[in-house]
Every structure is written in C-alpha cells, then in structure tokens.
C-alpha cells in the first residue's frame, strides 16, 4: 500500500541515464537521447510544460512540481513546506474536503505527493480520458486551497507521527540529521525536510497558507505530463486549466546563504542502545549539476559509480571482498540539487575492525584514484552501467516524468536531461581523477558514526548504511 502524502522524496536525477554494452556487440549509446520525443513550452502565465509521449498504454502521469521546498522556509518554520504538502489534500472552495482524492479514487487513479529540499510535487496516474479532470482539479488546488483549524490540527499530529516513524524510531536517521547539520554550514540543507520537532509542533495553517500563497503559482511551477498524449492536445488542455490562472510574478528567486567550505574536519557520533550494528560515513560538500562547471557533476557521477556504485567497485572490492574488514561499503553522489550537495562514503565494519580503520582505508582508496586515476576498463564499465539505467528508466513513464521534473525544478533544462548520455560519454579517466582530487581528496570531511550505546567510541561494531544513490530524507 502506498497512498498518503508520501513526503520527502529526493530523486537523483542523474542517477538514471547510460553508455555502451561492452562485450559481444558493442553498441555506441553515446549519442543516445533520453526521451527524444519530449517537448517543452511555456504558457503566458509562466507555467513551464513538459510533454513526454509514451503511447504503449492508455495511461497518463500528471505531475505538478513547485519550485519551492524545505530549503526555502522562513527561519523558525522548518517543516512548513512538508506540512503544506499534507494540507494540499484538504480541499478548495469549489472542490471541498476530499473531493479531489475521491475523484482520483473513483476513476481508479493513483496519487501522491512529495517534498524535498528544492521542490514539492503532486501527481496522479490515471487512464488517459481522465487527464482533463485531473488538470482542472490540480489547477484549482494551485490557488484556491481552503484550510480550517478543524482539518489542519489532526494533520499536524499526522506529520508528527510521520516524523516519529521516519526519524525518531531510527537512530541512523537521527545521525543523518546531525551529519547534515555539520556538512551544510550556513545553508538550509542543514535542516531536516520534515522539520525540527519543536518547530513542526508550533506550525499553524496560517503559516502554511502564507507559504502557499507566495509560492504556489503557475509562474513558479513545472507541469510534466508523460504517457498516451500528444503535445497539441496538452497545450490546449493546459491553456484551458492552468492557463486561466493569472500570474506575472515569474519564478521565485531562491537566494539562499551559500554553504561554507570549512577547512576543519568534523566528527559527529550518536550512541544509542537500539543500535545493534555500528557504522560510519564520510560526507563531502561537492557541486551539484546546477552549481558545477560543465563536466564536473558528470565526472562525480562516474566517480561515484567506480568508487562505490556496485559490488565490483573499488571500495566494495577492497573493504568487503579482499580485506574482509567490512560487510558492506559504497559511495553515492546526490547529483540533483540547486546548491552544493553531498558525496558520501558509507561502510559497516566486519569483525573487530574499527570505524577509524574503515575511514582511513576509504581515504587511501580515494587518494589512490586522485593520484593514479582509473583504468579505461573501469571507466567504460561505469559509463555502461549509468547509461543502461537511463535506458531502463524509459520503460516507465512515471520514472521519466520524475527525472525531468526533478531536473527542471533544480535548474536544469529539458535538453540537458536529453543529452545527458553524451555528457557522460565525454568524461575521461583524467576527469574522474581530477574530480576525486579536487572534491574529495583535498577537502575536509564530516564523519558520522553510529555506535552501540555501551561501546567506547574507538571500539567498533556495525550499523545501518545510508541508502546508496538517490538520497531520501
């Protein structure tokens, strides 16, 4: 079961895309285009529309992405973006209460919503002929939300239960909050998307409405429609629905204080009696696809794959297979973000190996790439893997819609997504070496250790690894 305003999604846009099957019949995928039929246009009120035809089944995925997220919240109101996401299901004057959800259910649709640091999204998947109705309802919800204390108060309790379920019952998630706070100095990514508990508890529906009125507008949104549609039909429908909403304010300018690169290493530790396995992670502040110079984010994607993207990666091979000092080890790069983002190493020790030993070995392995680079074979394999993911993603219209939506909501263009395979294919072994040198080897780290409550910090046991790739939280 899935429904419910399922929040806190962060889609690693560039975790999905591709290159060339190596052996047997080498196929050059370097000039492959992702969703070549995708087109984009804007309405007069500033709404950007992306249409991704997939005519295999009479099904449509309809998504609205607002260019606003948890990192855009006013001070003291952490969690308001996510609370608003929940309240968006409480009705409008014209479609009161649960009319929208009831309508989706009656036509056999799926729906949900998600909040990340940089965007908030709402979607339905329905049979093709129900699309106009979804567009009318979502357009209505864009400006006409109506809230009362009666519907908003229980929902705040729901959000606090969600926080308990996601964070407070999980020491690893609590450690994650501390790592973020230590990594993103002077930047709102340091605050949890779901909000700090005391601030969430004091949120009101008036706070939510203020946030809603200033940010939920066509000029600040992206409409992504994937499935059994063509662009002309969508243009007409969009004009008849979203097009009726006046907006001359354009996009919200997101001026955030920038994360500071400290010279000092930082160490955060959480010891908890519920921890049965210690673990460690190292986090680096690195550029995202939005902030990086051309080629840098692509090089970091390839580096993450070679370093720790699978079970033949450098880290897994050394720590898990050969040296047998870890039960798992890997690395991931959260590539999609408006501001500088994170690159993370994680490992769970095996036997009596200390966490420090794992951290030291990870640094040595990174230094080795920074000094000696990677082999052509490794490079090719990583590209094949990345680009194969992109081809596989094209089997699913909702995946494609998410890839485009997340990219556009964080400052990329449709063309950049489409030509991502070319950009990945262009990465050289030296680009990967340079990325390791510049962004990891030469930089300060934040170390996050999860410990058994009774264990001294230097002893070691084992613990939860952060989810590789596509960071949720």
């Amino acid at each position, binding site marked *: 079961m899935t429904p419910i305003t399922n929040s806190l999604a962060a889609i690693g846009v560039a975790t999905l895309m591709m290159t060339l099957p190596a052996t047997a019949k080498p196929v050059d995928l370097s000039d492959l285009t992702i969703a070549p039929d995708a087109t984009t246009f804007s309405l007069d009120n500033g709404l950007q529309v992306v249409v991704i035809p997939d005519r*295999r089944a009479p099904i449509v995925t309809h998504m609205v992405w607002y260019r606003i997220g948890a990192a855009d919240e006013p001070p003291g109101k952490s969690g308001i973006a996510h609370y608003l996401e929940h309240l968006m299901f409480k009705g409008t004057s014209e479609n009161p209460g649960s009319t929208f959800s009831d309508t989706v259910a009656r036509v056999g649709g799926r729906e949900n919503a998600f909040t990340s640091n940089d965007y908030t999204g709402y979607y339905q998947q329905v049979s093709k002929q129900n699309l106009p109705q979804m567009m009318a309802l979502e357009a209505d919800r864009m400006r006409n939300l109506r809230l009362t204390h009666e519907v908003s108060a229980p929902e705040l309790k729901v959000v606090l239960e969600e926080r308990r379920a996601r964070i407070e019952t999980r020491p690893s998630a609590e450690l994650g909050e501390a790592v973020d706070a230590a990594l993103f100095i002077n930047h709102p990514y340091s605050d949890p998307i779901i909000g700090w508990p005391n601030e969430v508890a004091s949120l009101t529906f008036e706070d939510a409405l203020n946030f809603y009125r200033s940010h939920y507008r066509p000029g600040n949104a992206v409409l992504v429609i994937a499935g059994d549609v063509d662009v002309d039909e969508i243009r007409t429908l969009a004009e008849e629905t979203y097009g009726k909403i006046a907006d001359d304010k354009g996009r919200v300018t997101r001026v955030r204080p920038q994360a500071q690169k400290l010279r000092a290493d930082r160490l955060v530790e959480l010891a908890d009696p519920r921890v049965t396995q210690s673990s460690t992670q190292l986090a680096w502040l690195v550029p995202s696809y939005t902030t990086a110079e051309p080629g840098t984010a692509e090089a970091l994607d390839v580096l993450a794959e070679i370093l720790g993207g699978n079970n033949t990666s450098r880290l897994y091979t050394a720590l898990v297979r050969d040296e047998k000092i870890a039960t798992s080890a890997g690395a991931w790069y959260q590539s999609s973000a408006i501001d500088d983002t994170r690159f993370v190493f994680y490992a769970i020790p095996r036997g009596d190996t200390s966490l420090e030993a794992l951290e030291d070995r990870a640094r040595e392995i990174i230094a080795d790439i920074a000094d000696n680079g990677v082999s052509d074979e490794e490079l090719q394999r990583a590209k094949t893997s990345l680009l194969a993911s992109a081809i*596989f993603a094209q089997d699913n219209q909702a995946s494609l819609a998410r890839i485009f939506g997340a990219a556009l909501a964080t400052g990329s263009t449709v063309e950049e997504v489409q030509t991502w395979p070319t950009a990945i294919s262009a990465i050289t072994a030296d680009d990967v070496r340079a990325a390791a040198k510049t962004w990891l080897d030469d930089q300060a780290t934040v170390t996050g250790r999860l410990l058994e409550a009774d264990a001294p910090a230097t002893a070691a046991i084992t613990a939860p690894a952060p989810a590789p790739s596509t960071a949720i939280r």
Partner: protein
Amino acid sequence: MYHLVKRAIVATLFISASVGSASAIDIQEVTSPGGITAWLVSDDTVPVVAVDIAFKGAGSSQDPEGKAGRANLLASTIDEGAGDMDSVAFQTALQDNAVRLSFDSSRDHLYGDLTTLSSSVEQGFNLLRLALTEPRFDDEALTRIRAQITVGLRREQNDPDNVVARLWSRTAFPDHPYGVPANGTVESVANLGHDDMVDAFKHGIARDNLVIAVVGDIDADTLAALLDSTFGDLPEHADLADVAEVEPAMGLTVSDTVDTPQTAIRFGGPGLPRSDPDFIPAYVMNHIIGGGAFSSWLFQEVREKRGLAYTVYSYLAPYAHTAVFGGGTATRNDQAQEAVKVILDQFERMATEGPTEEELADAKAYLTGSYALRFGSSSSIARQLLFIQIEDLGMDYIDKRNDLVEAVTLEDVRRAARRIFGEGRPTVAVVGAPAG
C-alpha cells in the same frame, strides 16, 4: 535458431481503461521445441526486455527446521558466481553487458528478474542459464553474503516494525513454516553453508515448477530458442517438501518491548483463499476498509479524524497454504491502545453494518479503473503475467478480472465480511515502549 517453433497466439486481451479507449495486450504462449512454455508480450517501443521467472513452491516455507533463511540466502547467492566465473567475473559480465539479474524469495516462491537491453538479450539469458545450472556457492561469497544478511537481521532486532511483524507471524502460525522468520535469525543463518545451498537448489529448481513471463523487444522465435538453451538443462521435476495447510490463530494479543517513541501494531486473522467464491468480494471489502485509498475506513478513522498515525492499512493475502486478512499501523506509545480499539471497531462495523451502496460503487470504480495501471511498462506487465501464471488464473484472467469485480453485490461484501470478521477478532501484536 533452426528449431521448429511451435507458436500459438492464445489470446488477444483488451485492457479496458474504463469508458472509451482500450489497449490491446497480445499475450502469446510460446512453447519451445523442448517443451518449455513462456508467456510473451512482444513490443519493440523501448529497447528493453523484461523477464520474470518463478520456481513455484521453492520459497522460504521449504527451509528445513533450524535452517530458517535458507531460501533467502539462496536467492542472494545464485548470482554470486557460476560456471568458470567467480563472483567478480560474473558480476562484471552483468555490468559489461548492461544486464540486470536478481533473485528473491517469498514465503511460497523463488523469483528471478532479468532485464536486458535488446542488444544484450542473448548475453542476459546466457548469464541466467549459468546461474541456474552451474551456480558455484563459493565459500567466499557465502561468507560475505551471510555477513551482510546478519547485519540486517541484527539491525531488525530493535526496529519495532520488524519486531512486530515477526511477533505476529510466530503467534499466528506456531509450529508452521509461515511462523518462522523468512530471512532467518542470526543463529540459523550462521548454520547455513554450501551443502544447504546445493540442497535447496536441487530440490527447488526444476522445469515442472518454473513459470516464465517475457515482455519487450523480443519476438517469439527468438524467445523459443532461448527458452531451450536457458532452461533446457534444468531437472525435470522439483522435489519439494509438503507444507501443511494452516489457519492463522485468532483472538490473541501479544506484545513486546522496544525502547522507542512509537508503537508498531500488526493485526491479522484468517482471510479467504483465492479459490474461494467469496475471494473477490473479500478483496473489494478489503479495499473499502483499509486497502489503500484515502477514503478507506481505517485511513479516515485513524489518520484523518484522529491524527493517530501516518500509515494505516489492511490487506488480503492468499498464500499457497493459508489465507490472511491483516494490516498495521504505528502511533505514539500512549496512543497505541486507542489505535487498536479504533481499528477493531471498524472490523466490528464491517461485520455488522457493512459498507453503503455508494462505498461499494466507489470501490468497484477504483478497482476496475486502476487495473489498467498495472500494465503501463514492460516490467509491470511481466510481473502481472508471472502472477497470473503462478496463481493459475488462466490467460483470459485479464479480460475477466474487471467483470468479476463489477459483479460483486452489497450482499456479497457483507457475506465476505461476516466470514472474515464474524468468527472473532484477529490476533494483534504490539511492539513499543509501554506508555506512562
């Protein structure tokens, strides 16, 4: 490719996406010269081939006593080296050919999932063949994967959601494989070795319990040849242990303590098997009470009206040897009793009052309308085709399924509800820190 291919187009099925548009899904039953059968939907729109297979009955219910977690370890190590390729060589071959291959086990079955590009379909099937005919189960791989599974098991020991799921299972199914942790325990996994894998493999992997679904950029002739080359060398017959038919225990309440701010709750009692004439009515009833829409009774009463939980759900699960109606939620420790009461009250209400005509109509509209969404991608179509074969529902099931739902009357739902809730309340398991 010079085999004589016996190809039969058995059915052309129309998924009605409610009024108006309909889309054809052509399912072909492809039988290879060697007599291996697969269901195929051929579609070259996306250059991907999705292959789902299952070995029926070879899931964790086959784990011998003291060997809990055997099927899970087997699924985790089949792809860790085969033939003359060790783990690294095998995994590297998968990556170099852009082939995704994984195995998984449920209580009842063992599953394989192969995804390839059109250009690597032969390499993909060949790697699947190797894994299924010459798996190595090297000590290195077994030791490594066992350590990973053990980490997961240790972590689960203090996770209320996992603790409560295990507590419910062993309470509902004492003295039955369904009551044993499917992934095993730290102790049982430590006892699993090479011989256990070979044993599980020998008994569970065969042609007579194999079902195959293939969707995507491949034609019937190509597939027919690959079926023989991939599965032709498997043993003819599986040799599975008998699993007793069982009913989940009802009316028990059990609890355990984990020091955590939120209490996890699971409930469950007898459901109805898929072969029961009231299964579809029960399925509709489950949708109304807690099956996953915002409008469900549990969602409305527990979440919307009272704000007690983020998640609350129910499900109807027909297993091979039992049938369960169950569900769960999680709430602040001091609200746990209230949440359980609210949930049980809904069962009572369903057993006595039942839903309204309007609720039934809405449920049917949702269930029939959403069926088409299960056929939106090659991988999801493959899952459906596999499921229909496992459950032996027949190739025309996709055509019939919405009619079966449409035919459900209010009296059918009430009867199904009385059968599920009328005998007593389900067994409830609660795990958290005692309030106050």
